[in-house]
């Protein structure tokens, strides 16, 4: 069973459903005046962030604190190696400090998996390089299920720089597991050549896809990648692959506009589109806390595993 949260590939449909159901019971905690339950009192969660990130770190920090865990933030620009200490030595240090769970964000793909070889505690991947960002995918799945009532059969387009996007990977894998119908759309230079092996469709024509979508999920354009000549200009990118007001107008009634943030308004998404009623970008952020509470609770507060074997949230814990 999964002692860690590393990749959406590790989670079955039942596992995902359990995480989302558990998140549902924690969602209410965030609406109270006193947003705290004692579920993880005395447990230590380390936010081990080796790559700049504000929103994900704060979301994890809030999630752990609302469960009454002790939270340590360990941040460093660049890799541990660049400071002269190896990832392994840093990991062993955190271990020696009694970390029950380590939330790791790192610019190197695969580093959370490597961490599991060296530490006893649970490891949660908060984004590794261009590999995966499973907690983002789970909060996105939560948001889609909450708004549209299901995941199976949903028609979802993930639009933009898929090649360099850990969000696109995790979300694709998760949606495919849940039976959704996924299309990756973007400049061919930014779609991995082997992406069809993920069980998704690939298209280079956003306009053809738009009228049939339940969810239009826009990825952030990494401006620095532009230098690498993947596409000619931001202007041309916006013209071909941006969610403009005109395109948003063609989206079917009731469909959702999503974005993992931070947005480049005017590049992948026009400013007024980001503020449309069907845009659920802020709700994604709110749901992120509940989903991360769910994961921490399932790993630390119940059976120690995500999925079968973990216990459902006892009513008194959620209500306490």
């Amino acid at each position: 069973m999964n002692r860690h949260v590393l990749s959406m590939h590790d989670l079955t449909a039942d596992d995902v459903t359990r995480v989302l159901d558990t998140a549902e019971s924690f969602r209410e905690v965030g609406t109270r005046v006193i947003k705290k339950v004692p579920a993880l009192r005395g447990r230590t969660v380390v936010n081990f962030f080796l790559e700049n990130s504000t929103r994900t770190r704060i979301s994890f920090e809030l999630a752990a604190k609302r469960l009454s865990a002790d939270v340590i933030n360990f941040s460093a620009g660049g890799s541990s190696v660049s400071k002269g200490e190896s990832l392994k030595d840093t990991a062993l240090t955190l271990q020696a400090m009694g970390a029950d769970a380590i939330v790791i964000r790192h610019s190197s793909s695969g580093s959370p998996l490597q961490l599991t070889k060296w530490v006893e505690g649970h490891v949660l991947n908060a984004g590794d390089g261009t590999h995966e960002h499973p907690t983002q995918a789970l909060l996105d799945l939560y948001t889609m299920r909450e708004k549209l009532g299901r995941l199976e059969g949903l028609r979802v387009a993930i639009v933009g720089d898929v090649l360099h996007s850990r969000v696109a990977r995790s979300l694709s894998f998760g949606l495919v597991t849940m039976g959704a119908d996924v299309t990756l759309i973007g400049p061919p230079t930014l779609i991995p050549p082997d992406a069809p092996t993920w069980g998704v469709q690939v298209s280079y024509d956003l306009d053809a896809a738009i009228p049939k979508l339940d969810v239009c999920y826009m990825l952030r354009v990494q401006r620095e990648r532009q230098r690498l000549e993947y596409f000619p200009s931001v202007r041309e990118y916006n013209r071909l692959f941006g969610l403009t007001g005109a395109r948003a107008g063609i989206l079917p009634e009731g469909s959702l506009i999503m974005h993992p943030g931070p947005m480049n308004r005017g590049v992948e998404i026009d400013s007024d589109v980001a503020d449309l009623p069907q845009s659920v970008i802020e709700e994604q952020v709110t749901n992120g806390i509940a989903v991360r509470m769910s994961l921490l609770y399932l790993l630390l507060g119940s059976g120690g595993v995500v999925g079968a074997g973990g216990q459902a949230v006892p009513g008194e814990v959620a209500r306490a």
Partner: protein
Amino acid sequence: MPEALLLRGARVIDAAASTDVHADVLVAEGRIDAVGLGLDPKGAEVLDCRGLVLAPGLVDLHTHLREPGFEYKETIASGTRAAAAGGFTAVSSMANTEPVTDHAGIVAEIRDKAADAGLADVFPVGAITKGLAGESMAELGEMVEAGVRVFSDDGNCVPTARMLRNALVYAKAFPAEVVIADHCEDPSLVAGGHMHEGVHSSSLGLAGRPGEAEEIIVARDLAIARASGGRIHICHVSSAPAVELIRRAKHDGVRVTAEVTPHHLVFTDDDLVGYDTNCKVNPPLRTPEDREALRAGLADGTIDVIATDHAPHAVEEKESEFDLAPPGTIGLETALAAVLTHLVDPGTLSLPRAIEAMSVAPARILGAAGHGRAIEVGGPANLVVFDPAERWLVEPPFASKARNSAFTGHELTGRIRHTMLRGQLTVADGKVRD
């Protein structure tokens, strides 16, 4: 150490003479004194070699000994220990040392240190360009006079067609056959890449090194060799299209040889799924189809040599993030067993052909006089004796200073029993002599 040794009853593989017989081999004063059945020991110590295979000592065309400059990874002493442990009597030493092996002084220094260590003969490979920078030619002539026969910029692909062309043409000046060896991956296509670009790189989120990067440079190098009449060697071939290009060029009479590593013959990009940094190598491990083409190319003689690309790194360098870990796996101590287990035992390669590719052919290219020779009276006693049936688990510690073996945790069949350099046992009963 006795003056004479009788190796009794081994299966003698003489790849140079294409014979495969059971015989006794008597060694005295560094040379083979007699070969035959039921030899009289005449006072020599007798080593019972029944059930074992005796062959010319192995020769490695692609070894990183790391000295001078990177003694924390490996030294000439520890690297030749690893060589002896793996049945090698001669190894090359690649030029990416610090300072770079791009002039005769460093060549002499490496030779002297190797002579002191005494566990395997070392044949330095010279750099093609000064500082491996790809810009101006190193003093090839002076290094040829110092005995160098193979030139390579190692992990750096010779960056321009013009530079490679000049080196191939210039090398024709020397009476000895001088070989220009190239790491064939187009630099612009592999920059920032960490593994084969394919199904796994896309889902692991690792930037890829596409197969066509190799195909492009192999085609370039072969075209230049064809037009210039120069002598090119393709290092560690890894992809099916490159094998086919070399096959056609050989058919056309282009002066080309090629090598393949045991790890490319055994592993594929499937083995990267757990982010095992020991499987991070350049060129990268590719697909099962590529691996099949490499095996076929070796069997039909398109690929001449099995070379290890033994690339030692410190433990802490490999215990890092995948993208930050340096590429390379050690290979001297597992090469023969890997080939026996994965190619000879399944019937892909005959044992004499394997010995030819691991001893005779590399000795010829490297100019390693006295190695890879026929097992005949009067010849130098550079020999290996191994048990073709013993199974063992690859695990640290190694004779090498390093432990970054892609084979760690794998079971292999075939174990070195004795290695003999000029009649002296460098390995006796599986133990390296110091």
